């Protein structure tokens, strides 16, 4: 275990928001170039590297201030790894992560600490992400202690204010996580993430552990907080309908790659990548009258291939109904087909043909 160096020198300024905002108005808040994460697989007596899980492979994208970028994909596509890379909870194998124009890819733990104020994370499971032995007050107040920030009026008052912002009773200050339901716990996690007024919040499956009726409460809460506090979100989820509801732009991932990146409306109206189309048409429609009138469903065969040895060429070609020879040999680059629409495919879907599930109700 390495003990993080005490770099008091790296965090001299207790003043929040060290970078002047105006300077970067036109720039992306977060810029990711060629981001890659390979987890080594070690084998044998000498722990030689026998291969690698290529969880994230060459990602390029930007997150603009004030927007919500949704990231969707099936399990194992690398979306959570991506979230952990941009929050620097994992060390990238290659590529760069720039936050407000500053390269943060290889900052050490100490140098990263002041930036932790600006980049926060909301976790999927509200049961395992809150320490069961700490009170809600301690949990939500922890960021202040770690960052040595003393909010005006004291930590307790600020924590109680945060609790009421996320719709909890300030009197819950002294309670323990087990006294709360899943939805309430997720609100506690959100309050903790917002404590230091971050600029970027990365939420990894923030609602997938919650019941439908509670899910809607939390989605609305995230929405309100973004408007009130001017937050920028990266929301990682597998649920396409939730992602559509919360996002401005959406990145679709498959086996460690972004296969399509577009603004929400054009993506859902006319997906260009065959995988996006298949993913959307697989979502069950909550309307029994449409049960039999679903000619356009694209049913994929088989499962997602292993990220240890991803298919050659286009990684989707083993399951794609449009695949031709070139797909097996040449990897399609993520290229801009129209303003704001990036697709990585040799045979993009006809943009004029609407996707089957997006019919007007």
């Amino acid at each position, binding site marked *: 275990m390495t003990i993080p160096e005490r770099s008091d020198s790296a965090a001299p300024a207790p003043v929040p928001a060290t970078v002047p905002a105006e300077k970067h108005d036109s720039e992306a808040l977060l810029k990711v170039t060629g981001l890659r994460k390979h987890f080594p697989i070690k084998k044998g007596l000498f722990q030689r590297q026998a291969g690698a899980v290529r969880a994230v492979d060459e990602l390029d994208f930007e997150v603009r201030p004030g927007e919500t970028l949704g990231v969707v994909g*099936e*399990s194992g596509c690398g979306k959570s790894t991506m979230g952990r890379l941009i929050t620097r909870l994992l060390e990238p194998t290659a590529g760069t992560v720039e936050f407000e124009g500053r390269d943060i890819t290889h900052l050490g733990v100490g140098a990263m600490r002041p930036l932790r104020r600006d980049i926060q994370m909301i976790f999927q499971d509200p049961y395992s992400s809150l320490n069961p032995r700490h009170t809600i007050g301690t949990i939500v107040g922890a960021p202040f202690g770690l960052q040595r920030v003393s909010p005006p009026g004291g930590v307790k008052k600020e924590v109680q204010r945060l609790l009421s912002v996320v719709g909890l009773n300030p009197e819950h200050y002294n309670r323990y996580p087990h006294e709360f*339901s*899943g*939805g*309430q716990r997720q609100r506690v996690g959100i309050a903790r993430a917002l404590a230091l007024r971050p600029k970027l919040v990365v939420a990894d499956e923030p609602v997938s552990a919650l*019941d*439908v*009726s*509670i*899910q*809607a*409460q939390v*989605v*609305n809460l995230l*929405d309100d907080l973004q408007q009130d506090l001017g937050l920028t979100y990266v929301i990682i989820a*597998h649920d*396409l*309908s*939730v992602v*559509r*509801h919360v996002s401005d732009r959406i990145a679709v991932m498959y086996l460690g790659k972004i296969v399509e990146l577009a603004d*929400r*409306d054009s993506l*859902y109206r006319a997906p260009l990548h065959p995988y996006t189309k*298949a*993913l*959307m*048409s*697989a*979502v*069950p*429609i*909550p*309307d*029994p*009258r*449409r*049960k039999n009138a679903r000619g356009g*469903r694209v*049913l*994929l*065969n*088989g*499962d*997602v291939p292993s990220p240890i040895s991803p298919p050659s060429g286009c990684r989707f070609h083993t399951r794609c109904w449009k695949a031709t020879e070139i797909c097996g040999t040449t990897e399609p680059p993520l290229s801009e087909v129209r303003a704001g629409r990036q697709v990585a495919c040799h045979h993009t879907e006809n943009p004029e043909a609407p996707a089957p*599930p*997006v*019919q*007007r*109700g």
Partner: protein
Amino acid sequence: MTAFLDVRDLKVHFPTDDGLVKSVDGLSFQLEKGRTLGIVGESGSGKSVTSLAVMGLHTAGQYGRRKARISGEIWLDGTELLAAGPDHVRGLRGREMAMIFQDPLSALHPYYTIGKQIVEAYRIHHDVGAKSARRRAVEMLDRVGIPQPDKRVDSYPHEFSGGMRQRAMIAMSLVNNPELLIADEPTTALDVTVQAQILDLIRDLQREFGSAVVIITHDLGVVAELADDILVMYGGRCVERGPADRVFHEPRHPYTWGLLGSMPRLDRDQQERLVPVKGSPPSLINRPSGCAFHPRCPYADVPKDDVTRTVRPELTEVGGRHWAACHMSAEQQKRIWAEEIAPKL
């Protein structure tokens, strides 16, 4: 003349240190062969407890030394299961009625091959040799769409992906041609593209085998795909039941409205805001008085005289084979749905 599966006033209560947990508290429903019933509700609403009760899996006293208290009647094909002895129910379980569980990884035994587990399920109920049982296992794996079934029959569960495991479990549950199949959140652990495959598979198999299917889920999309009838559970009771089309297009209970409003939908234009149900699910130990939904119901004050807080509403028929347990009059329900709820969906 009873229905193929007829559950009458089922109650499942668990004694705990904090009090009696009334997980299911007076549930009745019927299901005929060849039909699919979808049971929807949030966690803790009693969906899974109901299915385990039908399968006779509560009585073994697995909750410490204290047993679940079960009352009511469960009729399967003319036999009452709660009064029948455990040996009799064991003879039916797996042959007459089978279950698909949510998490195939924990429902399959990690030490035995898939084939061995399917063979075991088959030989318990059929007096056949090992070879022909194995042939049957391969045939079933092939039927549920596992590639190279003669090879994969010797694989262990960890060698299968999530979707394949769920297929293997479906193969195991169908190996004895059960007449009742209960699927408890069969696709919740799966990705959407795999979920679509499994839902198609369940639908095809039902058409082929003509069994009665109960599908338990929290996902309204899944029930809309599969179910002929829908039963909405809240706090251990049925709040609305009816043909799928009516429950989706003319729902009568405010909780059903809440579920429909909470859900972001891909088949509609972007909604501005979701309409969540306020508050959290009820305690099953101290149920709210009167209608269990009244603390969360925006229309709790519509009926007169505080009746929602004092009197428990009974299921009443509101139209052809459609029941709802709500104190509001049919006119009020229809008006609120048409004027206030439907336009927002």
